[in-house]
């Protein structure tokens, strides 16, 4: 029953990971007010969640050139969970003068 053992220990490891990760992950809030991302620089870890809170009456985006994009409608919140290690500059596609930076550590 080697296969059975393996599956059981895998399931155990998975359960441990599921239980362990929410306790370690943080939610980092980035406020958008009058076309400014605050804080402009984010230091995060894989598994953390970034939540953008848009206080403006304007839609904004958090866009990485050649990468991901999060659309944040007026007066709303949008979140992403960080899945990989990266260091990226992001900007708003509608207002490219809005800039932020994100460092994701393992």
């Amino acid at each position, binding site marked *: 029953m080697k296969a059975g053992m393996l599956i059981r220990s895998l399931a155990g490891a998975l359960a441990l990971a599921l239980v362990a990760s929410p306790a370690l992950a943080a939610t980092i809030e980035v406020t958008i007010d*009058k*076309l400014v991302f605050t804080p402009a620089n984010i230091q995060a870890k894989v598994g953390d969640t970034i939540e953008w809170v848009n206080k*403006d*009456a*304007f*839609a904004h985006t958090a866009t990485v050139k050649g990468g991901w994009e999060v659309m944040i409608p*007026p007066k709303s919140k949008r979140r992403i969970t960080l899945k990989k290690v990266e260091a990226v500059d992001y900007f*708003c*596609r*509608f*207002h*490219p*003068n*809005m800039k932020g930076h994100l460092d994701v550590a393992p």
Partner: protein
Amino acid sequence: MIDVEAAKLAIEKSKTKEVVDFANDMVRDHEAVNVQALDLVKKLKVTPEDNATSQALSKAAEAERAKLAKLEGAAFDKAYVANEVAYHKQVNGALETLLIPSAENAGLKSLLETGLKIFQGHQQHAEHVAGMLK
């Protein structure tokens, strides 16, 4: 508002995705600015007055819109986007040197400052689209 009119013309006429997307962004943001301006006007119980700056801007925009209405295809796209760059430059210049420094009401000053950031964003966005059309 005349810049919204030009955008609506672009949404109708242009077949270039980037141009139509940009025009939609302009309609959305400029309408949002207008709503905020009208709210402020109501709160302050003032009557918005035409002044030399707003008259010059709307006169230029109207002439530009008439010119755009006659163009088609790539010529239209180029002229529309070039006009958006020029228009936002002009508005930003007026905001920075004239309108913001002379605004005495804090609410009005704050709205104009947000407007300046929005329009500086639009100018950069328009410059980006212009670069793509080349």
